[in-house]
């Protein structure tokens, strides 16, 4: 275990709210009680002004940095960017990462026990939105005593949460970093969500979401994940990483075993995913992404940010990201410019596809730490211990 520049071994924490009065959801339904899994790194300064909320993507979780045990495999999903001296420098900032409601990695979701029935919710879990995820996070921040975030950052679905925070709670955010994301889920993204969901529905073990007593729909969930992984790569990164290489074979077998390196990679990723993710959560979270459209109820995208012009933005896209293409970010930057917001934008040259937001560590580290440095100066944020 490498503890250099690491936050070391961390412990997941849990916060439960909405026990007495359930939380109102965008769908009109209510949910309660709700537990959110979260982790924190670094120290909150005296006037509680150095908090940064990290929000995760579709399959992410609260464990963003450090290790859960002495096992190296328990490294957090964004450890490259969170830690002492890293992009989100835990020597300077109090970093919080919260799992989303509807998830299955410590937070209330379809696999949680429904207090009314004593059994897992399954499809009785109400449909949630990105707005609901964010509303739940405001309860967590209230609990932690943080009125205003120094910054909120996330890629992909994390970026959607960032934008939802800015649109709904602008008074609670100083700086926002929406990365490799969109202000409205595109028809192509909905199409990929739906194919993933169909893979789960088609698994006979899914049983309309009622499978917690029996065999899980792992084949369907693994297939959904394999489709997802294709969309996170790029044609070029597949060439670079796998080429036409065969795995464990010298020549073609003329059979239907796993042969090509890319096949073996996708199968491995799919199978590993079923060990940690719940198929129903996959349905609910992809649905929440599909519903995400900040234009909804507004004349145009700029109108959605009419009250969010005081936030300082850093928007980042990646040249080879075909899942959330550059023009989505440019549209966002245009809308933010139109309302007069302070927005910095860079389309980073990268061949890694959508995954680039996790992989272009060097560029991202310089960009994010310098941007946060400016925010600290402009808002005169106190140092830890002062």
């Amino acid at each position, binding site marked *: 275990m490498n503890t250099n520049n690491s936050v070391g071994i961390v412990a997941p924490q849990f916060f439960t709210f909405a026990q007495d009065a359930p939380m109102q959801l965008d769908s009109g339904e209510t949910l309660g009680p709700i537990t959110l899994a979260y982790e924190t790194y670094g120290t909150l300064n005296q006037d509680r002004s150095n908090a940064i909320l990290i929000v995760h993507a579709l399959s992410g979780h609260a464990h963003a940095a450090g290790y859960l045990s002495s096992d190296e495999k328990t490294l957090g999903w964004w450890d490259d960017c969170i830690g002492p001296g890293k992009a989100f420098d835990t020597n300077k900032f109090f970093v919080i990462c919260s799992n989303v409601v509807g998830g299955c990695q410590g937070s209330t979701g379809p696999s949680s026990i429904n207090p009314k029935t004593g059994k897992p919710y399954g499809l009785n879990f109400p449909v949630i939105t990105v707005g609901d995820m964010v509303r739940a996070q405001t309860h967590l921040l209230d609990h932690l005593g943080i009125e205003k975030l120094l910054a909120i950052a996330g890629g992909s679905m994390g970026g959607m949460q960032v934008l939802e925070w800015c649109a709904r709670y602008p008074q609670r955010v100083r700086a926002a970093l929406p990365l490799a994301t969109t202000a409205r889920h595109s028809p192509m993204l909905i199409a990929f969500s739906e194919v993933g969901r169909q893979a789960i529905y088609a698994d006979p073990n899914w049983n309309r979401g009622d499978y917690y007593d029996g065999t899980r729909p792992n084949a369907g969930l693994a297939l959904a994940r394999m489709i997802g992984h294709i969309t996170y790569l790029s044609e070029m990164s597949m060439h670079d990483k796998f080429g036409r290489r065969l795995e464990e074979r010298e020549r073609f077998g003329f059979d239907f075993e796993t042969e090509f390196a890319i096949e073996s990679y996708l199968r491995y990723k799919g199978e590993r995913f079923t060990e940690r993710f719940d198929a129903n959560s996959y349905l609910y979270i992809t649905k929440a992404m599909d519903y995400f459209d900040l234009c909804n109820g507004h004349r145009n995208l700029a109108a959605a940010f009419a009250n969010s012009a005081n936030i*300082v933005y*850093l928007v980042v896209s990646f040249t080879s990201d075909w899942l959330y293409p550059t023009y989505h970010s*440019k549209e966002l*930057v*245009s*809308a933010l*410019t*139109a309302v*007069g917001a*302070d*927005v*910095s*934008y*860079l*389309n*980073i*040259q990268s061949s890694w596809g959508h995954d680039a937001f996790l992989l272009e560590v060097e*560029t991202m580290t*310089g*960009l994010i730490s*310098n*941007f946060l*440095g*400016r925010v600290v*100066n402009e808002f005169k944020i106190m140092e830890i211990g002062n």
Partner: protein
Amino acid sequence: MINQTNLRADLRAVAELIQPGEKVLDLGCGDGILLRYLMDAKQITGRGVELSEEGVLTCVRKGVSVRQGDLHEGLGDYPDQSFDTVILSYTIPYLNDPAFIVKEMLRVGRRAIVSFPNWGHWRCRLSLLLTGRIPITPGLPQPWDTSPRARPLTIRDFGEFCERHQVRITQEIYLQGARRIPVRRDKNLRATTAIFELV
């Protein structure tokens, strides 16, 4: 911190035209040195637009708000008259449609400041006459085949351009190297750099 003495002469002349506390947009802001200087020395609110990734990263390192973009596609987002001054420093030779950009600058800003190296300088003229090669100005010392390609222009060209497009020149500053020279009839022969305030 950037001070006046280590700021390039043409940028220093542009900076002198800026009043404290202005809202300034710098198009093609490069490494952000002018905006950083103005933020420190004149407490301006600065925004930059820059095409290169390297330039954007350097601006962010300097704490400058910068947006990566192509001027031809990006200016439309800025509301009318949302800046006091819009600067186009040493960028006009690279533009495909300078008339469009200058008009956009005057829509977005109360005034525009445009600076460029003068290919009408006598050394440039003599160099073409004597060597038969396309002259290189000290301000943009790049050979003709480097990218992005610059289109040479002279002070007279720009004056006629403004007339043609009904843009009013309200101030003109001419430099010979780092030294200011008086506004006289021979400016197009003597100046290496021209700086114009337009409304």
